[in-house]
């Protein structure tokens, strides 16, 4: 009856209990090439990779399915032990420059770290990594004071084993895609507003779908002056503490996947926000943002979704590989059939293509985008130890760095960025987000198809992947909206001589 099956391949060499992780060179040959010409960057990248692999194998992989199940039943559950370990591995501070108390690693280290974590659970990658979105928003306001409020708290807490979450509150019931696109801002039905009062602002409104919103200690809230205009240049970024009077979390969303990172509704009812928690674009200005600010943020955060998607694509490949190693198809070992091996190779190929795509975007954004000034400011100045740890010196340094001078330096560097450069970075971000998330979705679909009914069972991992992956086409702007952005930044530009570099 089943003679149509040919068992033509010799069995694979006996595989170990777990899939062996690749070396840095095997996984990131493009970065290894760069590392060859920059030894210290090379060391940072490799060490970050190994660190992420160790953390993921020890703490993420063994718990991913259990956390998914637990948080399906109780979305309020917080995986405390995992978060403590994340503090030990300094995963909350990895993205900050040394002068702000962070690791001082090149920003690319953060992205590869999160690709690795997403290879084991993209929900957990989101839980730990979504702080980055808020940080980019603050960074794009070029307000070092706001940045230092957040980074200080995150880094200090991390040292004490306390995870600190920063949520980013942009989306509202009437404004999803519109709020992500500078050109559509005028149409966005954003109703959250801040009214200037003595010593600060009174914030009113509701934000929805806010990742980590339910347990974030600080919320970065995008809003407008209640009496002002609603253009991108009029946006204000307020940092709101979770205990503030009038701030509530009416509900956690019941979503399909990425359960480890909940999404919440965050409501502000006459919440007072002190003046010093408003991020400023300029010392004199009351706004935080500009058209270019939004574009710059998206270039980075969309590339980050590319990294997470790549992790999912890789996970789908590995899940199918494990299954094929252990199961039969019509009475024959799956892995000995040539067609199965071809399917596995296609899964691996898609993951590799995704990786190259997001790394391309990272290189673009490090060259011409928001993280290019950050990449420069990563380094801690070389001071003797006694001076480094001297309190007076430390306070003085903090003051300088969070003061007007740094602000001006930030702004100056940003002003050097031409619109063409910004479009390169953001356009690459769009492509990374869309391509990687599509490749990841395809991998999850194909992995389950290969596994058959076994792919539908929670314990085999692939069904969780399909639920998780579907979000990647939606947040950070739907894939369609990303492509419309790409049209503006890359396609139209080719016809517009005014715009070229």
């Amino acid at each position, binding site marked *: *009856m*089943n*003679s*149509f*099956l040919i068992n033509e391949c010799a069995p694979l060499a006996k595989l170990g209990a777990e899939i062996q992780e690749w070396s840095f060179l095997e996984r990131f040959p493009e970065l290894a090439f760069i590392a060859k010409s920059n030894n210290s960057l090379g060391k940072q990248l490799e060490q970050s990779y190994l660190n992420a692999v160790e953390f993921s194998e020890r703490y993420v992989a063994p718990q991913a399915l259990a956390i998914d*199940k637990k948080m*399906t*039943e109780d979305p309020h559950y917080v995986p405390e032990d995992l978060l403590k370990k994340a503090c030990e591995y300094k995963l909350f501070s990895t993205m900050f420059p040394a002068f702000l108390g962070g690791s001082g690693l090149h920003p690319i280290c953060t992205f590869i770290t999160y690709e690795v974590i997403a290879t084991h659970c993209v929900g957990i990658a989101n839980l730990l990594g979504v702080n980055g979105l808020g940080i980019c928003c603050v960074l794009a306001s070029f307000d070092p004071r706001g940045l230092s409020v957040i980074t200080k708290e995150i880094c200090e807490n991390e040292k004490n084993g306390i995870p600190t979450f920063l949520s980013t509150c942009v*989306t509202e019931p*009437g*404004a*999803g*895609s*519109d709020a992500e*696109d500078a050109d*559509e801002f005028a*149409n966005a*039905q954003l109703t959250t507003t801040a009214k200037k009062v003595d010593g600060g602002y009174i914030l009113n409104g509701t934000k*929805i*779908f806010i990742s980590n919103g339910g347990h974030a200690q600080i919320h970065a809230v995008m809003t407008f002056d209640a009496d002002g205009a609603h253009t991108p240049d009029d946006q204000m970024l307020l940092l709101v503490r979770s205990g503030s009077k009038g701030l509530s979390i009416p509900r956690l*969303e*019941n*979503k*399909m*996947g990425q359960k480890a990172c909940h999404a919440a509704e965050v409501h502000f009812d006459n919440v007072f926000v002190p003046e010093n928690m408003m991020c400023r674009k300029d010392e004199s200005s009351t706004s935080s943002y500009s058209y270019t600010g939004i574009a710059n943020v998206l270039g980075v955060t969309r590339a980050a979704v590319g990294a997470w998607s790549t992790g999912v694509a890789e996970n789908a490949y590995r899940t199918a590989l494990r299954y094929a190693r252990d199961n*039969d*198809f*019509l*009475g024959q070992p799956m892995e000995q059939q040539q*067609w199965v091996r071809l399917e596995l190779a296609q899964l691996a190929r898609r993951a590799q293509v995704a990786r190259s795509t997001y790394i391309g975007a990272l290189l673009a954004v490090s060259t011409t985008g928001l993280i290019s000034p950050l990449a420069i400011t990563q380094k801690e100045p070389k001071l003797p130890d006694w001076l480094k740890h001297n309190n007076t010196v430390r306070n003085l340094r903090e003051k300088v760095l969070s003061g007007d001078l740094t602000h001006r330096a930030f702004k100056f560097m940003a002003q050097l960025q031409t619109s063409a450069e910004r479009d390169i970075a953001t356009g690459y971000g769009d492509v990374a987000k869309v391509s990687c998330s599509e490749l990841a*979705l395809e991998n999850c*679909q194909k992995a*389950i*198809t*290969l596994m*058959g*009914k*076994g*792919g*539908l*069972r*929670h*314990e085999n991992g692939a*069904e969780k992947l*399909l*639920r998780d992956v*579907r*979000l990647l*086409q*939606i*947040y950070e702007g*739907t*894939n*369609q909206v990303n492509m*419309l952005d790409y049209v503006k930044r890359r396609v139209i530009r080719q016809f517009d001589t005014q715009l070229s570099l």
Partner: protein
Amino acid sequence: MDNETKLILQKSVNDWCLDNTDLIQQLEQPKQNSVAANTLFDELNQLGLLSIFHDEETRSEISMLAEVGCQFAIHSASIALMVVQQNLACALLAQAKLEAPLGWVALPLYDSVYEWSYQIQYEQKGKNTITNGNWLSISLLPIATTLLLPIQAKDKTTSFAHISLSATATKKNNIEISPAITALGLRGAPSGDLKANGLSLSEDDLILNSTKDEDFVTNLWSQAEIYIMAIRSGIAESSYRTARDYATERYQGGKIIIEHSLIRKLLADFYREKSALEENWRTFSQTISPDLSISDGLMGIALASAEKLPWLTSDGIQILGGVGYMSDFIQERRFRDAKQCEFLLGHPQAKAFSNWHADAS
């Protein structure tokens, strides 16, 4: 089935679903709800929908069962599957001249006839048939009172001549049934794993094992592709309707989103595909003979529908943006159900190989 009967059937299933939204919701929770499943059985049994294929008069009404499956799937693919499965079980029991069951019947609905041979084996010991082996993901097993299980003669080459169908109570010595599997979709129609550990079956338990029965079972399983296509079409229909209606209400980019040509294209393509899915099962359900297996071409169409639906329902989510990912709008359930439906009646690749096999040899 004439047009008038079709319209009455459509309306009554639709009305029943609208009157029973709470029951549907209880069933579709991630955790199995046996009470809701039993209530559902009583309700649908009373309406005669669970024994269409037991009744001599309606036994060959392929289009009737397909219609019922499609209409239920618009509201709940799990219920649609349960109705179809129960009727398939009724057809098998009627063929063996047994009464219609009084509870849900478990069937290995996630396996093609070609995959049956590799699961549970039997040995004849005197008058008793002793069976051993595991069978994973048997549909409705956790809520069923009866189990219809194909068993394979030990050490025999794989051919239906050595497969028998056994009918047995699910509560029996030497049968181990797992709790409901946590599955991607069709959560209202739970599956479970079976472990037969020296399960002893009497002659009465073995119901279908002649060559004539082989044809019957193979044809039934083959025709069942039509019902599953109808269920897929129901899922596509509901996902499409939700997307279309949402697009006429949601305002982004300066207008109602259905006014963006990008959304219009997505909807137009979705409409094209879901209409094709519907046309296929409707046409074929009226033309195939109840005594024959479906053609290789129709099997190709069925496999294409299995592959297409997860992508269509994925677009159904995308048109809604963030809310599509939340359970409130049911689009996410349709996406999960669609993928689960890909594997009904067996692994698609196993079916593709077997469909092609005769041609190659």
